């Protein structure tokens, strides 16, 4: 039988996922000799034996890798055989090659079974994990990924754990965060009745929740605030104490079965709920599910997720009912990460604290994905997804740091053929978020051993991210906001363009300082041309109008149906300073023109009486979206395209007039919402068709925060595909500002390579 020696290099997500033990098991079973080790971001296998066995090994790696591995490439090369026997796992070798930080993974079914098994060593142990699940990113201090460089360094393994750790056939072989009740982290409960530890801490925590009180929970990437989700009073109390008027609370259901009772699930939703990333999934609420309206006022959807650590599982199972599991913060600043921070900021909100002694080294929010109609779209990319890189086709070789936008910030480091996008960092205006932004950038550059050659940022001169970019002392590439959105969408699909980029959001700066937000850009990664856009509308009071849709309504009605303005004000806007707004418009004081699709949503929501003030970003638009009923009758509103000059302008005046007319006649809000969505989708399609006729490309990319709206997205996709377009929509990266850093990086790559 011929023998050979192969050197195999496997790349992808192959570290922290039990890859080397799997290789050991396969090689040993196939009677092969050699070794396997980690090197940089890859796994290197040096293996020798009968040629068919070698081929079998390669096939097993490709087709049966460990459940959490994602193989990007397998490269084999022959080498001169040298004999020897036995197969060994060698320790990690430091390398200068690119490194990887694996994302955290939700508890695997095996570990879950163990913690529920009364006879298992780890029965009821909240810090159970293995090579296929558990904390990674949030506990890693430095690379290579080894226990000594994680926050588990302080916990010395007991004998039993050490034995499992060193046994290649064990699921916990080289599981860096390995722990058990004897040697690992422990729970601590602090509340009215005093302190408690271990199992009693959990029991007291459950008691707190069942008594309708509020519990702060130290989780994986930060703190949560929890209470019983079906307890109307507890939910109301949590709203009051958090100062959170209407923004929805995420709900954690104990298991999939209970989730089925709470929301409408389809296969895509089930896969998202049970996968290793375990995001919060936005789903249509089931009628009569017993959840109070107050959880998500004015919305049909709820954010649902399943427990993602054994601690959460034990808590939920102990309570035996769904729990509100919302971010441990005050008003959208970054969630608390340390005990001191939690005590300071959450002390006035929580009645009790459930904590533990495994430090959270990296703050990481829960991810949020919207699911519906067989599709899904990333809304907030964080725990479980970030910072896993995506492979991209490069034009140049520079290492580029793209700093993203100021709201829903993420940054992106483009190093070699990979783009590493940070988890969601939030609003940089929050001091804690900005400091984390700076720290995380420095950290990632260190972890990946990548120093940027250039920085990319938005055009907006007031963005804090842009100020940081200029302070780096590196060449800066400034990228237009909506161009970055479209580029991110193209990148997700591995494309370069050109495509007709439909970029709809609240606001982003145009190249001449104007404010854009309803754009049709014929774009590629190399550049863009503004082919059409929504005609501008005025925001009386500038930024203030972003939270007060009634202002936009007045401005739009004043332009589209001035004779109806006073009637609308009287009917809908009582108790507000409408006269003052009219004066601002008449005198043109701080009435900012913006071509904004996002604000158009706000105007419609306000005119229709659905929402006149947004207590959180996007509230008016979300409420409007949730009202849409597919079967509502038309006719839909029209947005005529004015082609008299370039770029073409999409006029909204007839639409606004139509909305008011319907409202005045008592047409139900569900119908108005449907006519608006359908009308807008039809307009999008018509504009794209016109642009294609005008020698435009046959592909359309949909991006910008407005496309978080799944209803609008689905309508646009359907109509465009029916018209023969190839449609690119976001799935893995947010259409909102969380995605622009990726777009900025790729655009900068092109620019610098020229």
């Amino acid at each position, binding site marked *: 039988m011929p023998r050979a020696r192969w050197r195999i290099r496997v790349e992808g997500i192959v570290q922290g996922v039990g890859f080397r033990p799997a290789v050991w098991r396969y090689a040993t079973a196939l009677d092969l000799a050699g070794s396997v080790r980690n090197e940089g971001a890859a796994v290197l296998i040096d293996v020798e034996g009968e040629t068919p066995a070698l081929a079998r090994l390669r096939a097993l790696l490709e087709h049966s890798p460990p459940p959490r591995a994602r193989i990007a490439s397998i490269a084999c090369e022959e080498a001169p055989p040298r004999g020897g026997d036995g197969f060994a796992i060698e320790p990690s070798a430091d390398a200068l090659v690119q490194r990887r930080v694996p994302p955290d993974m939700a508890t695997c079914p095996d570990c879950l079974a163990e913690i529920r098994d009364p006879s298992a060593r780890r029965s009821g142990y909240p810090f159970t994990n293995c090579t296929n699940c558990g904390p990674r990113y949030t506990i890693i201090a430095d690379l290579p990924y080894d226990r000594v460089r994680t926050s588990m360094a302080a916990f010395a393994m007991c004998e039993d754990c050490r034995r499992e750790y060193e046994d290649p056939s064990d699921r916990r072989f080289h599981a860096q965060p390995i722990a058990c009740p004897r040697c690992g982290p422990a729970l601590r409960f602090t509340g009215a009745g005093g302190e408690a530890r271990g199992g009693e801490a959990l029991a007291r925590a459950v008691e707190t929740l069942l008594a309708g009180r509020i519990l702060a929970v130290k989780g994986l990437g930060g703190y949560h605030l929890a209470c019983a989700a079906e307890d109307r009073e507890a939910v109301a109390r949590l709203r009051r104490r958090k*100062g959170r008027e209407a923004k929805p609370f995420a709900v954690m259901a104990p298991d999939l079965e209970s989730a089925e009772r709470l929301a409408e699930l389809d296969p895509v939703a089930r896969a998202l709920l049970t996968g290793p990333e375990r995001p919060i999934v936005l789903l249509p609420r089931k009628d009569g599910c017993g959840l109070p309206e107050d959880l998500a006022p004015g919305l049909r959807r709820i954010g649902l997720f399943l427990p993602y650590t054994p601690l959460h599982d034990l808590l939920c199972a102990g309570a035996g009912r769904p729990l509100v599991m919302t971010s441990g*913060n*005050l*008003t*959208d*600043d970054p969630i608390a990460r340390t005990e001191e921070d939690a005590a300071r*900021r959450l002390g006035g909100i929580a009645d009790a604290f459930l904590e533990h002694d495994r430090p959270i080294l990296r703050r990481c929010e829960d991810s949020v994905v919207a699911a519906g109609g067989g599709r899904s779209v990333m809304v907030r990319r964080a725990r479980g997804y970030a910072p896993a890189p995506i492979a991209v086709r490069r034009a140049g070789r520079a290492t580029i740091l793209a700093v993203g936008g100021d709201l829903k910030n993420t940054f992106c480091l483009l190093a070699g053929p990979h783009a590493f996008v940070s988890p969601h960092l939030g609003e*940089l*205006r*929050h*001091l*804690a978020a*900005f400091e984390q932004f700076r720290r995380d950038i420095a950290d990632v550059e260190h972890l990946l051993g990548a120093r940027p050659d250039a920085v990319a940022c938005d055009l907006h*001169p*007031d963005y*804090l991210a842009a*100020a940081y970019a200029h302070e780096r002392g590196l060449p800066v590439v400034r990228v237009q906001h909506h161009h970055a959105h479209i580029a991110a969408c193209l990148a997700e699909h591995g494309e370069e363009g050109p495509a007709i980029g439909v970029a709809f959001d609240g606001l982003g700066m145009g190249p001449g300082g104007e404010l854009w937000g309803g754009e049709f850009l014929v774009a590629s990664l190399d550049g863009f041309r503004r082919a059409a856009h929504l005609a501008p509308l005025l*925001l*009386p*009071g*500038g*930024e*203030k*109008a972003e939270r007060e849709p009634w202002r936009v309504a007045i401005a739009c009605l004043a332009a589209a149906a001035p004779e109806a303005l006073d009637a609308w004000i009287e009917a809908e806007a009582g108790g507000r*300073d409408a006269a*003052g*707004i009219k*004066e*601002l418009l008449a*005198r*043109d*004081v*701080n009435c900012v023109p913006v071509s904004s699709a996002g604000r158009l949503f706000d105007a419609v929501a306000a005119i229709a009486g659905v929402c006149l003030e947004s207590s959180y970003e996007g509230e008016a638009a979300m409420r409007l979206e949730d009202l849409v009923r597919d079967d509502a009758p038309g006719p839909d509103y029209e947005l005529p395209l004015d082609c008299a000059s370039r770029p073409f302008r999409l006029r909204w005046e007839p639409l606004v007039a139509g909305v008011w007319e319907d409202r005045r006649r008592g047409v139900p809000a569900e119908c108005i919402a449907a006519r608006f969505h359908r009308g807008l989708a039809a307009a999008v399609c018509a504009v794209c068709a016109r642009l294609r006729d005008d020698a435009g490309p046959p592909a359309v990319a949909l991006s910008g925060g407005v496309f978080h709206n799944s209803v609008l997205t689905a309508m646009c996709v359907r109509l465009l595909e029916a018209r023969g377009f190839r449609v690119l929509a976001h799935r893995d990266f947010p259409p909102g500002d969380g995605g622009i850093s990726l777009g900025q990086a790729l655009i900068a790559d092109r620019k610098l390579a020229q």
Partner: protein
Amino acid sequence: MNPDDVILLSHGAGGKLTARLIDSVFLPRYGNEILRRLGDGAVLPPLAGDPVMTTDAHVVSPRFFPGGDIGSLAVHGTVNDLLMCGAEPRWLSLAFVLEEGFPLGDLARICDSIGQAAAGAGVMVVTGDTKVVERGRGDGIYIAAAGIGERVRGLELGPRRARTGDAVLLSGPVGQHGVAVLGARRELAFTTPVTSDSRALVHEARALFAFGGALRTMHDPTRGGLATCLNEIARAGGVRIAIDEDAVPRDARVEQACELLGMDSLYMANEGKLVAVAAPESAAAMCAALRAAGAAEAACIGAVVEGSPLVAAASRTGGERILDVLTGDPLPRIC
């Protein structure tokens, strides 16, 4: 003077009409023994302390607004700049650029204001100049003012003196001047009209001078408001400033107007307020001294803290946010 009289080009020619203007409009309203010599320049007596000089151009529109006009603004602004340097203000120069057709009645009113402001601040206008530009080239009146003061002995002021732990004091409510000017410019009928706070800060400044080294630095938050002023201190001093937004004195009428306008009073101009950085042990006493000097709402609004240079503002409801400098001006031609 005939109410229809207007400025003619020859008023700026340096001849008969110029002399008549000086005699009939300027001297009666703010003349003094030095100015009356009408030399090409003013010979001034020696100063006991270090001379301090400042200059400002004034282009405010509209020129008359509730609480003041371009004349009083020019005097107060120049005097305040000198006070912020730790100097007792002494002498001012005023150069007018007038547009052909500018009403003499308005000029007289403005000069009245100048006279009153100068007398109130204890300073003399010692020299000046008048030029006239053709109709359409000048928007009425621009004033360039320069001032000379005398540094108070033992006072060493500047942002570099700020240290971690120092207190940040503010002499009164924010945003009055900016909102008043905007209201007047756009003829906005606010439900309750706002008056500019334009005034000379002589009493307040002198109250703080008495604290010597415990006074680290003083600034007046004019263009760009309190937020911009604090950022200047932070940048120049290389320090981080943390303020409590709920501790900043506010004027309810200003807040109401800003609410409607969609502006932030922290960024609206002030022309009669000062910001002082003080040694922590003297902060309370300095606040009391300010109040005794007439700044009834003076308060400690924050401190110099550890960290990279920036300004952070905390509020009960909003957490801690960064108060950055804006690139543009929310409101041009405010002073």
